[in-house]
Every structure is written in C-alpha cells, then in structure tokens.
C-alpha cells in the first residue's frame, strides 16, 4: 500500500503522548456549516490537542477550508453563512452569547493560501496586528521577535522599511506568518499555506511548522498528502457525501494519529484516498 508514504514519514515523528496526557484546545461537537441554507459541512466531531500539528486532508470541495474558518469566526464575514453545533475553546463556547470576534482572532490567527501582505513596509506589516490590538509597548521588539520566529529576520533586518511587495513569494508568506505571530496567539490556522509556493519555499514553511509547534497549536489544511505525512501529528480525512438531490456535503471520515491514517486506516474511503485510488 502506501510504501511511498511510509517512507516519507519523518524519522523524528515523535511518539504521541498518551491520550490522557493530551490537553484539548478545541472540542468540536456535531459541527455543521451551511451557506444560504445549503449545507456545506456536517456532523464533525473531533478534538484538537495543544502543541500538535493537526492536518485536514481530503478532495476538493469537502469543506476543509470551510471548517478551518470556523475556528476564528472568518465565516462570519460571508453573508448567509450559518454555523450549527458547537466548538469549545479551552472550555469556552466559541460561538457563545456575546463572543467578540476580535477577542477570538487575537488568540487564533490565520495564514492564507495566497500570501497577502499589505501594500506597506515590512515593518508595518508585522506591526499591524499589535497596533490595532493596542499592544504598542516595545513595538520594535515585537516585530523583531515575530520575524525571527518566522525565520525571516536575517533576510530583512536591513530593509524593514522596504515594501513588503518587493519580497519573493516564499518570503511574503513567511512575513504573513510573522504578522500572525506578532500578536502572540495561542493557535495558528494555516489554509494551504504552501500551495502557491515553489518546493524550496514549501520546505522552509514545513520546517517552520515543526519549530512553531513547540510554542503554538497548529491546524493546517492541505491538499498535499505527503505534506500532511511530513508535518502533522494528527490527521483528519474529510470527504464528500452526495445527497439525494445530488448536493454535496462535506463530512469527517476519519481522525487519528498520522502514521495510522497513512499505514492502517480504519475506513475504506480513507485507504482509497491515501493510496491514490481516488481524489
């Protein structure tokens, strides 16, 4: 079966801690999302663990991006989007009464598929988050620390005032990561962060994920199975279910430790996907 995948599983794949020792960051219960009444995702149940890298994989249209956007209230920006079910963040209901999206996004940051630096200087990009959130003490220090953690500091420290758009694609994405880190979040969401980048830049992003998970909890959506196998501790496989009228709804098929998903999946659909029989 997936000998190629098995061969790719990194040697440093650590032994995951015993389930009883894992700390739950997100507890997702019966989550569904619909756009204007049409369900896009339904019946998702899983737990995200602290300091893990969790990957969402699956064919296109299965709702992985929709799902990840639930964690930081980004679906609220789409008119007609409705969330059913609950997500608990460290025990607090993420969609509870009077929850403020700004407070949520302060703790749960996001990196997008296509690098989207602001048309400003590198410094102003990294400083934007702290500025709008009122964290203006030691701004220079925050910017430097964020850029260092994103492995970008050495490359840009002499030209912080240069326009962010003058950076290469890979550098821009690392700047977006730095931007996210500057507000000192708890969780980092990454929606296909390397899909617009060349292989070398991709590798750097993946290395970054390995380092960052020591301090942050990371959820990454990827359509690249090998990438999931390389970086993720836990992997969730999503697929598409066809309704009677032909509508397509995303569902969670299987969620387990990465080695298990790729070598001994419990569900036939998972095995079909990871061996490349479909999707």
């Amino acid at each position: 079966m997936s000998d190629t995948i098995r061969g790719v599983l990194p040697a440093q794949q650590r032994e995951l801690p015993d389930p009883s020792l894992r700390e739950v960051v997100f507890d997702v219960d019966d989550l569904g999302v619909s756009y204007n009444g049409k369900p896009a995702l339904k019946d998702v149940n899983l737990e995200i663990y602290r300091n893990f890298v969790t990957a969402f994989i699956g064919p296109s249209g299965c709702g992985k991006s929709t799902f990840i956007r639930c964690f930081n209230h980004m679906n609220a920006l789409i008119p007609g989007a409705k969330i059913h079910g609950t997500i608990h963040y460290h025990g607090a209901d993420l969609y509870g009464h009077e929850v403020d999206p700004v407070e949520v996004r302060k703790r749960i940051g996001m990196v997008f598929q296509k690098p989207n630096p602001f048309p400003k200087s590198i410094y102003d990009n990294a400083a934007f988050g702290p500025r709008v959130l009122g964290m203006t003490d030691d701004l220079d220090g925050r910017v430097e620390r964020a850029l260092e953690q994103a492995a970008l500091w050495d490359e840009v420290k002499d030209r912080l005032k240069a326009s962010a758009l003058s950076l290469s694609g890979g550098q821009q994405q690392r700047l977006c990561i730095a931007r996210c880190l500057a507000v000192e979040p708890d969780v980092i969401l990454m929606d296909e962060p390397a899909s617009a980048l060349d292989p070398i830049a991709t590798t750097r992003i993946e290395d970054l994920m390995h380092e960052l998970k020591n301090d942050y909890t990371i959820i990454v959506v990827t359509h690249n199975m090998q990438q999931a196998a390389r970086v993720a501790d836990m992997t969730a496989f999503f697929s598409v279910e066809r309704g009677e009228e032909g509508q397509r709804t995303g569902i969670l098929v299987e969620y387990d430790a990465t080695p298990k998903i790729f070598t001994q999946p419990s569900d036939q659909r998972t095995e079909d996907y990871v061996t490349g029989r479909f999707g």
Partner: protein
Amino acid sequence: MNVTSLRAERPRGRVSSGLFKAFLLFSIGVGIVTLGTLLVTVVAKGYKYLDLVLLLEPPSADPQIAGARPAILATIYLGLLLIAFSVPIGVGTAVYLEEYANRDRWYNRLLEVNIQNLAAVPSIVYGILGLAFLVRGIGLGRVLLAGAMILTLVVLPTVIIAAREAIRAVPDSIRQGAYALGATKWQVVWRQVLPAATPGIATGSILALSRALGETAPLLLVGALTYVAFDPTILGDFTALPVQIFQWVARPQEDFRILAASGIIVLLLILLTLNAFAIWIRNRYQRKW
C-alpha cells in the same frame, strides 16, 4: 471559379466598405477638427489681452483696463470649498455603500439608483434647488457659500462613483488578512482600504472638481452676479470665472469678445492643470492589483 486568385471578387463591396470607413474617419475628424479650431481661434483672439491686467485687475466698463481678478479668486475659493465639502461626504457615502451596507436591503439599493439618477440631472435643476432653498428659503442670500454648496451637490454623485470604484479595486485578500489579525471593521477601512484606494479617490475627485469649475448655469441662479468689482468673500456677493466670461461674451463690442477669449484661456489653463495633476497622480501612484 479561379481558385488561384485571392483578390477581392466584388468591386462593389469594396466601394461601400471604403465609403463606410471614410464616414467613420469623418466622425472622428469632426470632433478633432472642431476641438482644434476652437482652441486655435480662442488663443489667437484672446492672446491680445492675456496679461497681468487680466489677472490682477477687477472688471470695468472700459475693456482696456478690465480684469478678471474677482472672478479668478472666486473660482479658486469655490474650488477649495468644493474639495472640503465633496470629498468627505462623497468618500463617506462610498465607504458606507461598499463596506457597511447590506446589499439585500431595499433602502440601500434605492440609494444606489438615486445616486445614478442624480448624476444625470441637468445642472440647472441644482441651481433651482439652490435658489429655492439656500438663497430664498433659509435666507443665505446670493453668496459664495451658497454657490459652493450647490456645486458640491452637482459634483457629489461623480465623486461617490469614483470613490466606490477605487474602494472596490482593493483586493478582498487584504481585508481578510486584516480581519484575521483582529482588526475591527473601521480599522480595516481606515488603515488598509482607504490608504490603498487613495490614488483612485484623488484622481476621481480632481477630475470632478475640474468639471465643476467650468459650470455656469447653477451659479447664475444662485446669484453669481455678472458684474462684481471687488474681491469675493465667503458670505458676500460673488462671481466666478465662467460667469465673468459669460458676461463678456454677451456684450457685442469686439473688445469684450477679446476679453472673453482671454478669460477662456485662463479657465482652460486652470482646468488643464487640474486634469494633468489628476493624471499624474494616477500614473504615479495607482497600483495594478
């Protein structure tokens, strides 16, 4: 049929094609020739009186010493007031429509249709509005401020439309990135969207201003007197350069015709400078997303 010959087979088709193309070229030509003739005759005639007297002296019954100073000053004041009024209101309306308004609500769609309609209302109707409400209604009288307010209304739809396009051109990915960092809607607008849209807004506003400074009809109704010999103040009697030109044109004497042409040269130079400035801004600062 002779298949080796690829020349056009029907000469009649070629004649009508040729005539058609000639008509098209003539269509373009009419406009260009008229423009050229107009500019040449105006400059040739008005050149004679184009001197400092024109710029620095007030008008007079004697064309030799008549100038357009009050009119030029008034036009400048009108321009400044116009920018001060129309840009904040126009950009505010555009931001409301693009970032805050829910498109499904009927009152927001009505707002959009309303603005499109106002853009096409004849400018003299705005003059009537000014006459009824400002001059007579609230008793503001025939003052510069009334003229500025009415011209603001004339120009507002154009500024709104230009600002909306500039705001729409800012890619959504920038907004998403800013929201994801915890910015509120106003922070996103004020710190990301408006700065990125500023070149487009500036260009559109200056072009709108340039159109407004050439307007005469609303000013006639709102009280731009055609003979004002003293410098204008905001709450005093006033005239404006197009109105002054109108007054001179209406006089049959040749000397006043020459003065009118000189005044036209000054007006066209002012408009040309504004337009060139707007285009310079567009070329230098406009980002191709």
